[in-house]
């Protein structure tokens, strides 16, 4: 039974006030994308056992989507942040590495 802080409302929301939305930071592929790109966008999931970035909607609250960095093996939450970013912000990365020193992002930072 998770609790996640909604970054918009600032409340620790109960899992039953939220709706889960699986993997975050997916890049949409539309017309013009190759079959492989489209398949990967729709289906190929990281599904990691460990640090994961995922989407949640504060559906019984403000109705906004936000993102969470969470460990799928322990259910620890490293942090939550607004959805309007294409990759996890630096402070979230720092929070993760504070508790998972060996963990490294599997993407190249754009800034």
């Amino acid at each position, binding site marked *: 039974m998770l609790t996640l802080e909604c970054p918009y409302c600032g409340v620790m929301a109960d899992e039953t006030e939220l709706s889960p939305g*699986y993997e975050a930071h997916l890049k949409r592929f539309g017309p013009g994308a190759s079959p492989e790109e489209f398949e990967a966008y729709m289906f190929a999931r990281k*599904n990691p056992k460990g640090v994961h970035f995922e989407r949640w909607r504060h559906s019984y609250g403000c109705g906004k989507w936000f993102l969470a960095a969470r460990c799928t093996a322990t259910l620890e939450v490293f942090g939550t942040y607004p959805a309007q970013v294409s990759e996890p912000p630096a402070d979230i990365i720092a929070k993760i590495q504070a508790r998972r020193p060996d963990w490294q992002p599997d993407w190249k930072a754009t800034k």
Partner: protein
Amino acid sequence: MKRYSVFAIAREAVRYHMGWERAWASPEPKPAYDVIIVGAGGHGLATAYYLGKNFGITNVAIIEKGWLGGGNTGRNTTIIRSNYLQDPSAAIYEKSRSLYETLSQDLNYNVMFSPRGVMMLAQTHHEVRGYLRTQHANALQGVATEFITPQRVKELCPILNIDGPRYPVLGALWQARGGTGRHDAVAWGYARACSAMGMHIIQNCEVKGVRSENGAVTGVDTTKGFIGTKKLGMVVAGHSGQLAEMAGFRLPIEAVALQALVSEPIKPCMDVVVMANTVHGYMSQSDKGEMVIGGGTDGFNNYTQRGSFHHIEETLRALVETFPIISRLKMLRQWGGIVDMTGDRSPLISKTPLGNCFINCGWGTGGFKAIPGSGWAMAELMAKGEPGPLAAEFNMWRFKEGRFIDESVAAGVAH
């Protein structure tokens, strides 16, 4: 292998059961095998069994991280049915169900297959139409199902409240030859039979890496060292994504928690399996007398084998409303498992990007009932290198083509 029978029991009783032999051996791994199956759950063991039985391949190791049958095989609600809508699903589940019919005799191990009948309640007009469709499909698929009246529902399951008030029962899809089995016994029975064929079941042996050369697997690194193989089968349910990553490919899979619970045992009051999909709950009564109840899945990735409790509450609300007598029973134990959900909620029995590596996963919430059929189809795929008709549609490339095998069209939930 000494055969089990009532005479063997009588013989052993005289000497206080001191003469029973081990059900399966615990060998140390050999340097290499013809086939390695990773995962000694029901599906992995069944795959090995049918490799031996149907194809004479017995130089096989089944490698298990923990204890055989210790994953979802031993955590499910043991429902066996084949009243699926789509042809490929109906085919493999019906194959499975028919193998269950004779499995106790085939394995010489009583898996307690109990064809007590499975009914799926229709509680909205929409659901009625959905089950009528399934019934018509089943008629052409050779799956014996019947859409029955509310009165017949009540006769088959008197403790059901068919009058609502919220969702009166409008009928049910009834599969008389569906039922339940003893989940542990299925794993143990297959394990004993595999061991008797000379296969190696290697428990407490975790795979840490998959080695490959030129697009083909050469073996696996394990906590008991490197073990070579000519063919590799991955049959690890919730951990498929992890294993695939070791082999260098990604799967259309999310691992989520699925929960179940049992009540304290009471005297027999229910002789069928009932699934109520409008309200999301299903229930049967075990031979011990416990009401065996299934809950929903979480909607987030979770490897803890602990689900979120509100799903248990949602399920119980539904079932207390459907079966008013159970409100005074007590939840004895609840637990969770990690299930692997694919993009269309149907399984993969498939070749992989690696030539001699095969995968069987994605059974989601419906794996137990599929064990014999899944093993049968996977053994054929591994032995021949190409899928037979049972596995053909379950390849992992269907997602790229958009060729879904989507059972959710018929029912809100699949179990």
